[in-house]
């Protein structure tokens, strides 16, 4: 049963990708319908799979030899993320029906979206590290293809290639870990590693741990690899929702959460994870404050919220990190799709050219504000509960200065969220032309997400059960009831946190009176607008590589004498090396 469902939830989107591609771009309506059907079917399969979650290997495809057996386990962590990928993914597909209406090359668009969703499901359900790497790379390929979907726009292409190169660069860390694991234990079995991490030498385990951290940071756009995610905003907006909420960036957090039991005793690893999360959360939040591009603000907020999740893994409370991942997926998909409706209508992403849209887009305003409040962490929305869980984990398991800085981050989050809502929906109307509210398919996608942002926190109990020891034997997550978990949240530190959030809100309210403070922090804004120099580093690396390439190409003179000289010199050098070596 579980095996069939696993095959279905990976295979259906992939089959759909093939079918939509084959249908051809002349039959636009059929393509839309097929894409929706296949993604929904995968979503249904994944939801049913929730019922048969277990820790046993559910499906084995014998390949053997150096590739190991391709195995799948439908454990709690995997199934949960598979549901996120397929359900949020299918909502993004439904949204696309309106958003991508009349676009060229829909076949390519939907094929990659479905391929992406299937790969993400595979990534979280497999227990073979090679296969995990395969799916990992496929998600990178799909994200690149979709970010660069508008191929005629050089910015989109550059953004896509940047995403591909940076995530692949990080992927080398995962690759190294995987080949080291198989070369020391002869097996790719992830659960075997989680069961007895001491079975491999401590040094190798440390390489694995830090290699995976690099891979996860690159994938989840964490410090110092965060630069690709804002540039990925060139993608069509449903793709941004897909990447930010359903698939891509979750993979990094998933990787850390999955391997936490194996790496937690590696010296310095948990501290490093916390630090990466902390730096990212703060830095991205500040960058979100100074950005005027609606999608970029959301992108930075994703980076920042992912920082919270990574930090939570570092504190050892995997449950809090995954619970926030759930909340974040829902409200971020909502925010992105809402932003998509706005952008689709206004035709720009610059918030300075928006303003006063609330009256013309009432539905969008309501759902967007629900998402924004969840992001800011106001009760009783889902973001509030999960963020508080993370902060409490931080208070208990991390140095107090880290906790305080994370609190500050929560305040900044509230600040930029209110700024964004204000600039888009309130104030003086600036956009001209025909402004229309979200289309029908867009509403179909937005409504359940808004409902989700209001209610998913009620699932805390069942969520802790599915991540419990019955399906995840090595993670030590205890099943509790919803009320127990919520009861833990309601405490004094939460009031402090709420106070900080309120401060952020107040700061935006009284922004005129805080002019002096704003000026004093001007240097910070400038640094943030320049992405704290990380873009410059990126550019430097690209320039250096291209310079090396140009420099090297001088050696190809085309002159025959020179070419023969190459042979003679190589021979002489080889003689010399052998004479010294022997």
């Amino acid at each position, binding site marked *: 049963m579980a095996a069939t469902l696993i095959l279905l939830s990976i295979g259906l989107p992939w089959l759909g990708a093939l079918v939509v591609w084959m249908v051809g771009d002349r039959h636009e309506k059929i393509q839309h319908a097929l894409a929706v059907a296949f993604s929904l079917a995968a979503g249904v399969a994944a939801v049913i799979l929730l019922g048969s979650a277990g820790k046993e290997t559910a499906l084995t495809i014998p390949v053997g030899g150096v590739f190991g057996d391709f195995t799948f386990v439908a454990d709690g962590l995997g199934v949960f993320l598979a549901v996120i990928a397929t359900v949020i993914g299918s909502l993004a597909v439904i949204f696309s029906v309106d958003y991508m209406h009349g676009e060229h090359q829909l076949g390519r668009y939907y094929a990659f979206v479905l391929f992406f969703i299937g790969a993400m499901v595979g990534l979280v359900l497999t227990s073979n590290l090679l296969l995990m790497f395969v799916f990992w790379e496929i998600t990178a390929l799909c994200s690149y293809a979709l970010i660069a979907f508008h191929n005629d726009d050089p910015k989109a292409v550059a953004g896509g290639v940047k995403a591909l190169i940076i995530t692949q660069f990080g992927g080398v860390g995962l690759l190294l870990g995987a080949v080291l694991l198989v070369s020391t234990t002869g097996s790719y079995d992830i659960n075997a590693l989680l069961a007895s991490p001491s079975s491999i030498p401590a040094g190798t385990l440390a390489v694995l741990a830090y290699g995976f951290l690099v891979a996860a940071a690159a994938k989840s756009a964490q410090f110092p690899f965060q630069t690709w995610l804002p540039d990925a905003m060139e993608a069509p907006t449903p793709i941004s929702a897909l990447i930010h909420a359903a698939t891509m960036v979750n993979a990094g957090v998933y990787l850390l959460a999955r391997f936490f039991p194996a790496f937690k005793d590696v010296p310095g690893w948990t501290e490093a994870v916390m630090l990466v999360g902390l730096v990212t959360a703060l830095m991205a939040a500040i960058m979100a404050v100074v950005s005027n591009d609606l999608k970029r603000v959301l992108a930075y907020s994703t980076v920042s919220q992912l920082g919270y999740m990574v930090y939570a893994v570092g504190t050892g409370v995997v449950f809090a990190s995954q619970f926030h991942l759930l909340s974040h997926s829902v409200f971020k998909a909502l925010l992105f799709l809402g932003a998509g409706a706005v952008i689709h209508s206004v035709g720009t992403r610059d918030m300075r050219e928006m303003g006063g849209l609330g009256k013309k887009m009432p539905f969008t305003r309501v759902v967007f504000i629900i998402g924004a409040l969840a992001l800011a962490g106001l009760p009783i929305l889902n973001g509030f509960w999960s963020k508080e869980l993370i902060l409490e984990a931080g208070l208990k398991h991390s140095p107090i200065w880290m906790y305080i800085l994370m609190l500050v981050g929560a305040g900044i989050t509230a600040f930029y969220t209110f700024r964004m809502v204000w600039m888009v929906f309130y104030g003086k109307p600036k956009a001209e032309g025909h402004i229309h509210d979200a289309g029908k398919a867009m509403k179909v996608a937005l409504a359940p997400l808004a409902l989700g942002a209001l209610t998913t926190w009620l699932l805390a109990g069942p969520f802790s059960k599915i991540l419990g020891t019955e399906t995840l034997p090595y993670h030590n997550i205890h099943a509790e009831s919803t009320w127990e978990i919520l009861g833990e949240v309601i405490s004094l530190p939460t009031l402090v946190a709420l106070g900080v959030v309120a401060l952020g809100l107040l700061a935006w309210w009284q922004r005129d009176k805080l002019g002096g403070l704003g000026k004093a922090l001007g240097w910070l804004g400038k640094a943030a607008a320049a992405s704290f120099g990380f873009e410059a580093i990126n550019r430097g690396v690209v320039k250096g590589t291209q310079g090396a390439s140009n420099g090297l190409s*001088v050696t190809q003179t085309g*002159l*025959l*004498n020179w070419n023969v*000289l190459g042979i*003679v010199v190589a021979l002489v050098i080889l003689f010399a090396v052998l004479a010294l070596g022997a």
Partner: protein
Amino acid sequence: MSMNVPSVFLIVVIGLLGVGLYALLTVRNLIKVVVALQILVKGAMLAFVLVGRLTGQVNLGQSLALTVIVADTIVAVVGLTLAVQVRRKFGSLDIKDLTTLKR
């Protein structure tokens, strides 16, 4: 002091190889390049005859050398055909003109 036959041969072999390689590094005329290749191969050929004699397998050495001559002649023919065609198309045999393909 008189030199024995093998060492004379050896000096000739090394000389041919050296002259051939040096020529390949310096000459600019395509015909001369083909000639330089010929000199190189003649060195190798002679070496086969020499070693056949040294190891007491004169026949084997010579038959190998013969095979080398055959293969080498074909290469020379192809090379010269190309040279003729180059002269027609480029109007020159200078290999400095044969540098349109680079980078």
